[in-house]
């Protein structure tokens, strides 16, 4: 399955990464090389094998359903490049 320029442009949009038009061809070549290399997994017989979903055999813990942190919006937004009045800002999203 070849990763062409159009596929890379589509994936780049899905990932919200701007890729200049003149970089698409070389990037397609690099990504195609990686994808071709991982294709060798096709050789492995995984019939009846369950996917590994956790690196340690453990079950998730329960905790009481209550808020145990928060209440400091100024700290939360302190690193925002353009926070105003404890809110994040973005370009207009609703016309």
């Amino acid at each position: 399955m070849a990763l062409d320029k159009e596929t890379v442009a589509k994936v780049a949009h899905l990932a919200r990464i701007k890729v200049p038009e003149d970089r698409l061809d070389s990037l397609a070549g690099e990504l195609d090389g990686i994808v071709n290399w991982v294709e060798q997994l096709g050789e492995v017989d995984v019939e009846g094998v369950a996917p590994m979903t956790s690196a340690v055999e453990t079950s998730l813990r329960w905790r009481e359903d209550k808020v145990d942190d928060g209440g400091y919006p100024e700290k939360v937004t302190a690193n925002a490049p353009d926070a105003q009045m404890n809110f994040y800002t973005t370009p207009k999203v609703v016309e």
Partner: protein
Amino acid sequence: MSDPLDLTIAEARDALRAKKISAVELTDAYIKAVEAARPLNCYITETAEQARARAEASDKRIADGKAGAMEGIPLGIKDLFCTEGVLTTAGSHILDGFKPPYESTVTRNLFDAGAVMLGKLNLDEFAMGSANLTSHYGPVKNPWKRRDDDKDLVPGGSSGGSAAAVAARACLAATGTDTGGSIRQPAAFTGITGLKPTYGRCSRWGIVAFASSLDQAGPMTRTVRDAAIMLGAMAGFDPKDSTSVDRPVPDYEAALTGDIKGLKVGVPKEYRVDGMPASIDRLWQQGIDWLKQQGAEIVDVSLPHTKYALPAYYIVAPAEASSNLARYDGVRYGLRVEGESLNELYENTRGEGFGEEVKRRVLIGTYVLSAGYYDAYYLKAQKVRSRIAEDFRKAYEQVDVLLTPATPSAAFGIDEEPSDPVQMYLNDVFTVPANLAGLPGISVPAGMDDQGLPLGLQILGRAFDEETVLRAAHALESAAGFTGRPQFRAG
């Protein structure tokens, strides 16, 4: 008293408690060393003032008889650990100016044990790399050089700044993180000890996430004993990390008994790869002999799916990275590159903020998780991962630990970076399987190659059996008697 920069953690601890040296004296010596090491580019941020303040507090606690396990020990912290109020970059342009309002659990544990932070150490961007060549803050130089050759070499990666700083005496020890070998490979390239604990042993809370099912923090030190002491301070249950495991932290130092009689050591035949330098093959055989001479029983074992570990890793890790790195959006922290619409803001910020390797991996991850490909790639890789874990389970029915080389080569030149990304990925061929299976592993400096560069041997163990891993590594270290020192020394 000998040069304070040559003390190990164990020796410094004893000297501090015996008042042969003060924490301030030790820290001051290291602050000078950090400055002297600037040509290596191992620190992104130096925190001399805070270090001095912490050292003064350590001296008070020592005087009061309240010294912790890491009291007064000057550490470097990989710049992937969030440190409260101190710039945390992950080696990326996209985290420009980010000062976390909180402290990672591992650094919190170390500070609670009395450790002093000298600064934040350089790394591959978001820990994605095996040579410390992808950092926005520039490459780190290995303090080692080939015999009769002045060429600058890489320190390995992604914990390259940590490895270079420990080797060059620019910190007594350092934290690292290991997703596919990022502690063990740079440790091997710089002649130091690097331990990746079992997944779940150290909390991941407050560590900038790369691949959440693989990431694990660990110590990078000059000796196995130091790794045992530091791991004891880093490890522990943390309710803030849902994958942190609630079990007691043993006294790892007590595990270094020096006795490996009857220990069953497996030698996996699949780790003998094509094109491996003869010096590494020889060192591996030497390691087998060293352990045998101390009474260990050597057993040939097979891990048949080893060759599929790297390709499985390069599906799982980028897939998880593409999800984890979705948070860098130009809105909540770090870099923001404006755009006409919200999508443009995202695309501009991420296009400019991420480096080439990070972009490649996020794109691969997005591709393998996208509609129609999920089963063919991600699900398949997770099944292969089960096969790899099963290989280890079967091997550990016969043996207690495994002995392998740590890397397929010694350090290479900064200008010898392979142009094909896949060639670079092969650096981690011996380290990646343990991450996929969640198992502990340690790299111990054990010898030199033909050009005078350090080489490491790796011990892998059962889940949560760091004690046996450390005991075997300690035996290896004693037999190897590695005394090599890099050409560059700070101060």
